[in-house]
């Protein structure tokens, strides 16, 4: 046993763990951060888009030295048909601002930078060390951790679980249940290298500008899922993910989905001639508000993906992770400065603070959405995209058919695929879940 006690042990060095460790260390607490990877970022996978606002609240001048790829000036949403897509693009010169709002990043590099800031703030960061178990006293209070290193028991007043989506430690300690297959998506991603100017030409961007594409529709073969294409400086991140429960039902495997997504006629020209240098897979918590486990207890709090804090609708995860890490750290600091013990009652402050933030407010807003999209996945991810794409083709193709007749045909294609009641029901449910 180590004869040393820390104010806080942070398990994991992803976005949430780094935000928590940084904030705690900045507040003067004695912090130990344990990471199983070789370095922070070596095992972390994300698309990835960084939202500046949430990082600014932690490191205001991060733009000075953080490894950022491109700031985003254009967002495209594509509803995919089999050989087509219907798109909604938003591009604005306003995003070419002094302090841009969103950036693409490469996590291996970004997290390394973030981790160096954590060290500078004064936290002790130990990598290549897996926490195997939470140490609990006779009353179930978490008092430390055991690691896979010899003599590995270390004690702390509070343990911040930033262990990532699968939540193995918390589950093993009986603090929570393992996430359900309906609540997690499996995403696969590739990095396609291309010369900088080719990327800029293909995406109509220049300099540090970036564009992203979010795509949903027939590419997920009726499963609840989405694809994405993000521009980095010299490569394109491209991936697709679907709910694990949908993959379980059989049909397509993740890599075949990805291969087909890459071959889609709307996508293929964007990555033509590229060289794939990296392949990664990751689980993403998508259960939303209803899947959030218990967030705190005697001697522990849980943050980030481990707390299932991810807004699947808006494709926001890392900012919820950073924010929950920061808020947990601030709550711990408040309890500590009052010289109160780290009991569940005192640490409930974390949940209160989280509920007052955008994190819980946003997740609560969409609380019914995951269930709706999951149950209706065939309609929302296959039937409707097909119909919309067909309707669009019908609308733009000039073939001598009178317009009124075209309109009728389009309406008929909708009602024959789904009854009026079904259509209205889906629209109503979608609107209600969105409200």
């Amino acid at each position, binding site marked *: 046993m*180590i004869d040393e006690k820390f104010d806080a042990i942070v398990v994991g060095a992803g976005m949430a763990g780094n935000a928590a460790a940084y904030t705690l260390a900045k507040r003067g607490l004695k912090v*130990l951060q344990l990471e199983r990877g*070789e370095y922070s970022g070596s095992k972390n996978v994300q698309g990835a888009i960084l939202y500046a606002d949430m990082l600014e609240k932690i490191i205001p001048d991060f733009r000075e030295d953080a490894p950022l790829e491109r700031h985003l000036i254009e967002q495209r949403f594509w509803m995919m048909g089999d050989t087509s897509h219907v798109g909604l693009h938003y591009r604005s010169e306003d995003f070419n601002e002094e302090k841009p709002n969103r950036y693409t990043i490469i996590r291996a590099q970004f997290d390394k930078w973030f981790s160096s800031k954590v060290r500078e703030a004064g936290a*002790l960061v*130990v990598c290549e*060390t897996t926490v195997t178990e939470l140490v609990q006293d006779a009353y179930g209070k978490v008092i430390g951790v055991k690691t896979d290193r*010899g003599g590995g*028991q270390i004690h702390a007043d509070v343990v911040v679980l930033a262990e990532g989506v699968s939540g193995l430690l918390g589950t093993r300690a009986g603090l929570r249940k393992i996430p359900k297959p309906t609540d997690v998506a499996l995403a696969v991603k590739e990095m396609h290298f291309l*010369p900088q100017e080719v990327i800029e030409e293909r995406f109509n961007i220049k300099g540090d500008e970036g564009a992203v594409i979010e795509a949903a529709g027939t590419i997920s073969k009726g499963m609840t899922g989405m694809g994405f294409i993000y521009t980095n400086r010299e490569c394109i991140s491209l991936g697709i993910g679907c709910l694990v429960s949908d993959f379980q039902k059989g049909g397509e495997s993740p890599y075949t989905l990805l291969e087909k997504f890459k071959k889609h006629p709307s996508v293929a020209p964007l990555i033509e001639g590229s*060289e794939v240098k990296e392949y990664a897979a990751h689980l993403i918590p998508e259960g939303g508000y209803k899947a959030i486990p218990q967030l705190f207890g005697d001697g522990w709090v849980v943050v980030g993906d481990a707390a299932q804090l991810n807004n699947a609708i808006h494709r926001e995860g890392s900012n919820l992770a950073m924010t929950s890490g920061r808020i947990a750290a601030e709550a711990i600091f408040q309890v500590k400065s009052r010289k109160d013990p780290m009991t569940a009652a005192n640490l409930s402050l974390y949940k209160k603070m989280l509920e007052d933030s955008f994190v819980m407010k946003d997740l609560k807003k969409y609380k019914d959405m995951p269930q709706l999209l999951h149950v209706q996945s065939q309609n929302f991810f296959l039937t409707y995209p097909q119909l919309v794409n067909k309707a669009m083709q019908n609308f733009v193709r000039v073939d001598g058919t009178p317009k009124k007749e075209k309109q009728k045909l389009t309406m008929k294609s909708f009602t024959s695929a789904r009854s009026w009641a079904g259509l209205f029901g889906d629209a109503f449910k979608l609107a209600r879940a969105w409200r």
Partner: protein
Amino acid sequence: MHIVVCIKQVPDSAQIRVHPVTNTIMRQGVPTIINPYDLFALEEAMRLRDKFGGEVTVLTMGPPSAEDSLRKALTFGANRAVLLTDRFFAGSDTLATSFALATAIKKISDTWGAPDLVFTGKQTIDGDTAQVGPGIAKRLGLMQITYAAKVTEYDAAEGSVTIERRAEGGTQVLKSKLPCLVAMLEGTNEIRRGTMADALRGARAEIIKWNAKEAGVEDLSKCGLKGSPTIVKRVFAPSPRAEKAKFIEIPEGGSLPDALIAEIFTRQPALEADLTELARGF
């Protein structure tokens, strides 16, 4: 006893990327590691220390970021770490490197006691010269044993070390006077996993940093690019293989093995003919 282990921080060759356009090595974002050969040297040194007592000092020369490798060495269980870092050292070839390291080892001797043994890896994976170890031995007037597989005996009273050396056609058992430089071969032992206490100590330790002056270098013209007579004539990337992995689609109602075999035969028609011939024989 006091052992000095020289290590080098190198790019992780397993994760190195050659820029597809310019064909230069992309160092940004490529993780660095301790030169794999050096880990065998470090482990052998620590085993001796654990058995006979004493200290292991790890020494490296490199940019400030080489601190990561030293910290890792401390996490494995080394006692102290010295980083030799100065812009005067930039561009050193093996001659200049062995000069700088030998000078630093003298300073280490003066500060923490003369080493009985100096360990290095056989060579580094980025330079592959295997010259720096012998260079240090020559400059410091040490005995030297290269291609060392194992230290079998250490006799402090007699001042000797016995080492198994792998040679062409067999193993030599060599006994040498101390102090001696040992260049370790790969695959000879397995680097230990430091304890939690080692890991904490490694994360927390102050790395001792010396510039050229602090290391005791008087003649700067022997350092860095100035002190390096080696000239790099040309750097080129081997041409990449034209053949790329192919994603095979299974036709409707077909099977993966059939599709795979069909694809192989399409590419190697001779193979199909040979195998058909062979099958006829059965």
